């Protein structure tokens, strides 16, 4: 009765999946609690204390009535009152401590699990991310981990606490009067049955209401996104009816839930009143029979009849909590159990600095295999060498395999055949960290993290000071661009209206690369949509960036690479032509075609124009 409506508010939880209990899973969950064993022990003692003090109060009330009020001993009454107040305050403090401490333990364990999960995912290679949707990992790291939190915090300790409470209530009742205790306890099975009956049905209904809510969500999500289609095809009336149908199912599910609540609360009230009536009737009869039944005992029992209910209800909730936790745990551990991360070499080659020689020796690579298991080769027998200090350009049509060369060089993916050597060392013998620290990458689609320009340039590395950053920005002339932003280096890059064009983003990436000052630079040039001004800036920046540095560049605008020491023309996964700009043009082959294509729609009078297409920006943001 006491918190009739609180259930409407705080306990709208349910399990989405039925899950069997799995001892192995439980033990594994327990491992995350192990570091907090002593806190758990402490919490158990506190819970034990709180569980005694609650049922102690009606017992004290009995003493107050029988020993003092009935006989009119007001002096003694004051003492009992003092004890009552102490018991009350004690119970209050202990149950606060119990609640907070168990939550604390749960949060610590959840923190450990969550950060472990993040570190685990982060060290997976890129191929893992190709076949695992980011959304799924996010769910694992957030809501699935969250599902475990209740089990961690309130699972064992509070469940034991509820059992303690039931035990002590029974204990005090039997001490006071065993016959009345038996009469009172007779309604217990009924109460347990009603509670579990309710829990079972409501659980089902909640699952149903959640399902219906999810349908509403999906429907709205879909129809908001595709509203123009609905409108264009004049389907408003029909879609409205469909929505009303779903909305109606949702309402129906709720109405059934209301029905169970409407039965449950009055039933609980009714059952405790039945217990009360039984106590009065039976107690009255026994009193006439000359038993030692006193008024105080009667009053105490009236209170006990009402104290029973809460621990029973709380216990019935535990089952759901645990089930949900198991479902979450299974998914979270599923992620932790899949480890595709590259093994570190046993005896890694130590490198402090790279000369800059890069060699591809008959490299074959496929991202995936087709249905029959034959690899779908993206690189076919690719061989080339970049000498220290050289600038080598890769050109070719879309899908020729240029970006893949970068991906395998930085070991984002493992090649299937052949070798890649850096300064004569197979990259598989190097530490990943060393490899990537010495080879700087500027990708085509520059990914910007939310936050300030500064954060994106320094990547929050405390080792990068303001001066270094500003110097780097100046070197590639990005400083003007940055200073033109409303908040300069503190400009939030994702804020509405401050979206940077692709070219501008690449300039930022140049600064980023320069700050980290790698020995070898790998660059994927931005394709289209670069305005002339930025284009010129990029051009100059590139020159500074690659000066005296071994550079492997994927070029989209052939104008930028005419001075390259070597140009590799890739086509369908193979290097088809190689040579300098002049040599290649003279060959009059593929390169020539690509070159003509480049200038085809840049005829005089129609300068290339940065049209900063909005759709593009949105995809990026």
């Amino acid at each position, binding site marked *: 009765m006491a918190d009739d409506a609180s259930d409407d508010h705080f306990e709208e939880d349910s399990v989405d999946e039925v899950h069997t209990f799995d001892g192995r899973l439980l033990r594994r969950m327990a491992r995350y609690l192990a570091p907090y064993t002593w806190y758990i022990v402490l919490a158990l003692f506190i819970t034990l204390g709180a569980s005694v003090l609650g049922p102690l109060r009606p017992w004290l009330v009995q003493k107050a009535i029988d020993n003092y009020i009935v006989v009119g001993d007001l002096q003694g009454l004051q003492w009992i009152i003092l004890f009552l107040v102490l018991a009350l305050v004690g119970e209050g403090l202990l149950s*606060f401590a119990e609640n*907070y401490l168990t939550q604390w333990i749960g949060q610590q364990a959840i923190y450990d699990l969550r950060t472990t999960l993040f570190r685990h995912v982060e060290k997976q290679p890129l191929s893992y991310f190709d076949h695992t949707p980011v959304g799924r990992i996010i769910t694992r790291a957030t809501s699935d981990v969250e599902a475990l939190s209740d089990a961690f915090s309130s699972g064992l300790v509070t469940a034991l606490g509820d059992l303690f409470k039931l035990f002590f209530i029974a204990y005090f009742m039997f001490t006071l009067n065993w016959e009345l205790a038996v009469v009172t306890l007779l309604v217990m099975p009924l109460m347990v049955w009603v509670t579990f009956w309710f829990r079972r049905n409501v659980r089902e209904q909640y699952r149903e209401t959640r399902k219906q809510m999810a349908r509403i969500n999906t429907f709205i999500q879909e129809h908001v996104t595709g509203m123009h289609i609905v*409108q264009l095809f004049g389907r408003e009336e029909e879609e409205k009816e469909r929505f009303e149908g779903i909305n109606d199912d949702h309402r129906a599910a709720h109405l059934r839930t209301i029905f169970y609540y409407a039965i449950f609360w009055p039933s609980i009230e009714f059952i405790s009143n039945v217990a009360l009536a039984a106590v009065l*009737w039976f107690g009255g009869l026994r009193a006439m029979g000359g038993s030692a039944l006193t008024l105080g005992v009667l009053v105490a029992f009236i209170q006990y009849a009402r104290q029973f209910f809460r621990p029973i209800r709380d216990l019935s909730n535990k089952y759901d909590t645990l089930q949900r936790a198991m479902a979450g745990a299974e998914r979270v551990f599923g992620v932790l159990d899949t480890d595709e991360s590259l093994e570190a070499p046993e005896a890694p080659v130590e490198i402090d600095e790279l000369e800059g020689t890069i060699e591809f020796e008959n490299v074959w690579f496929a991202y995936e295999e087709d249905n029959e298991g034959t690899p779908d080769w993206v690189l076919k027998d690719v061989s080339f060498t970049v000498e220290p200090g050289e600038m080598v350009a890769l050109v070719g*049509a879309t899908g020729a395999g240029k970006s893949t060369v970068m991906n395998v060089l930085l070991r984002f993916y493992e090649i299937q055949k052949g070798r890649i050597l850096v300064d004569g060392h197979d990259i598989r013998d190097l530490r990943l960290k060393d490899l990537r620290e010495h080879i700087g990458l500027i990708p085509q689609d520059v990914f910007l993290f939310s936050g300030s320009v500064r954060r994106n340039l320094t990547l929050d590395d405390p080792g990068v000071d303001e001066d270094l950053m500003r110097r780097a920005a100046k070197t590639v002339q990005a400083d003007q661009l940055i200073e033109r932003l409303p908040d300069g280096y503190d400009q939030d890059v994702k804020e509405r209206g401050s979206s940077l064009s692709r070219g501008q983003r690449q300039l930022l990436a140049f600064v980023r690369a320069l700050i980290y000052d790698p020995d070898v630079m790998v660059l994927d040039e931005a394709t289209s949509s670069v305005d002339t001004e930025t284009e010129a800036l990029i051009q100059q920046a590139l020159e500074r960036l690659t000066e005296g540095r071994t550079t492997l560049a994927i070029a989209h605008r052939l104008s930028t690479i005419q001075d390259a020491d070597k140009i590799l023309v890739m086509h369908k996964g193979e290097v088809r032509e190689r040579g300098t700009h002049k040599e290649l043009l003279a060959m009059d082959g593929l390169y020539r075609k690509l070159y003509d294509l480049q200038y085809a729609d840049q005829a005089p009078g129609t300068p290339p124009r940065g049209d900063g297409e909005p759709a593009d920006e949105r995809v990026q943001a």
Partner: protein
Amino acid sequence: MGPLSRLNHFFWEYKYLFVPGLLFTMVSAGFQITVPMVVRQAVDSIPRFVRLYSLYEGTPAQAEFYAYFFVTLILFALVIVALSGTSGLFMFLMRQTVVVASRHIEYDLRNDLYTHLQRLSSTFYQEYATGDVITRATDDIEKVRRYIGPAIMYVTRSLVMVLVAASAMFVISPTLTLYALTPLPLLAIAVFFMARMVHRRSDLLQQQYSTLTSRVQEALSGIRVVKAYTREQAEAEAFDEESRGYRTRNLDLAWVESAWRPSFLLLVGVSTVIVVWVGGRLVAEGAITIGNIAEYIIYINMMTWPVASLGFVITMIQRASASVLRLQKIMDRAPDIADGPQTNPSIQTLEGRIAFRDVWYRYEDEEEPALRGVSFDLPADHTLAVVGRTGSGKSTLVRMIPRLLDPDSGTVEIDGHDLQTIPLDTVRRHMGYVPQDVFLFSDTVANNIAFGDLDADREEIRRAAAEADLLDNVADFPDGFDTHVGERGITLSGGQKQRTSIARALIRNPRVLIFDDALSAVDTATERNILRSLRERQGNHTLVIVSHRLSAVQEADLILVMEQGEVVQRGTHETLVAEEGLYADLHEKQMLEEEIQAF
């Protein structure tokens, strides 16, 4: 109440539930309140019975008394059970009316919102994120419902309980009542403040949860950068930081929530202790009986929740007002593309002659106009092609035809009528549109195609699919036309989606068919097949094609070449190729690309 008064008409509408509901509430509370009175009678009678009974010890009358007391006690018990049962029955009825009514209103509100959303144009959807709209349709409406149902139920019940119980208590002993009830207002105030703290802290927690989520999202989306710059450790530490923040917020909330039950317990407990203490003295003075103490203890327990719920109700109402305001922002928004006084309802059919007269348009968040003075005339049943680079205004132009956008200045005319005078329904009914970004519903392939024409039978669906060159694919799908696409079905390739979207437009047999770069994801062979089907329909519709690929536009009667929102060239393929300019450049480029591919 302010904004909440907007909801008043619902109370009137559902008065058949609210009026009995409130009556049930009062009756239920009334019966519940009488239980302790009976308990008091019983408790006070027992010692009297015992005294009487022992008085007749040893006499034959004793057995008679025993029978009499036995029956009386059973009566007491039965009355308690009966009262409690009746109260329970009405409590059941109360929930089945008031709370049920709130669900009906929730249903109505949500339907209203959705219906209104259907009337709003793309400008609205550019302004509001999808998630935002969903939150309003779910969370905000739920908050409003809580005000309508539970909040009103609690208030009524609390008031009845408190008034009846307090007067019953007052009659017994004004002094004891005053003492015993002192902590209760404190309880209501405490609950109010704690509920507010809980809400505030859970909002903060929610915020931190979003931060945490976006942190993961970002680190994973940017995993290449993270790895390329070996920032794994730094990212992990940043994530630790956010996780710690989340833990802190969680514990902040846990602090209030942990204090919740104990404070409740303490305040109620204090009332009980006061009853025993002050009541004990009064019993000693003979002012009240011990039965009264039992009665008071039950009253206090009974009043606890109703009083506490008053504290809740205040926050519930506050939240509901905020939600109503948020809902209003959408509901009060007038649809900007809709029929109006200028509409001529007699226009029921379209021929398909399209004319633009000096049309200008600028998107709200952009500086440069997307269309600058576009004009052209296209006779019915002819084909118009629009080409140009990305961002040159092609899509904006064709979106004007089905009135997805209205021009800032200039007019779009169909059959010589200003488009804005033609009923929107007529415009849309006679048009087939294949958008640039394909959007399919998570439904079967057949239903997605029949979205264009609900009455279409399987044969027509099949024919449309055939025309869109989709039939062979459908044959490969696990359930053919009944295969589900999207989230809970199979994932279609870009080209398959695009062709489904084409079939959806074709099945309408529209007077005006618009392809907004709708062949970008299909290969040249498929493109050829689709163009062939379109050719067969020639003369039956006006066709507008936006394309990057010139192969698709070569047969058009009129080709517009767009650049920076302007039509820079116009003509047919033959005249344009001969002319020096963008079209000829594009043409040359495409020839080269084909050569390279064949290399």
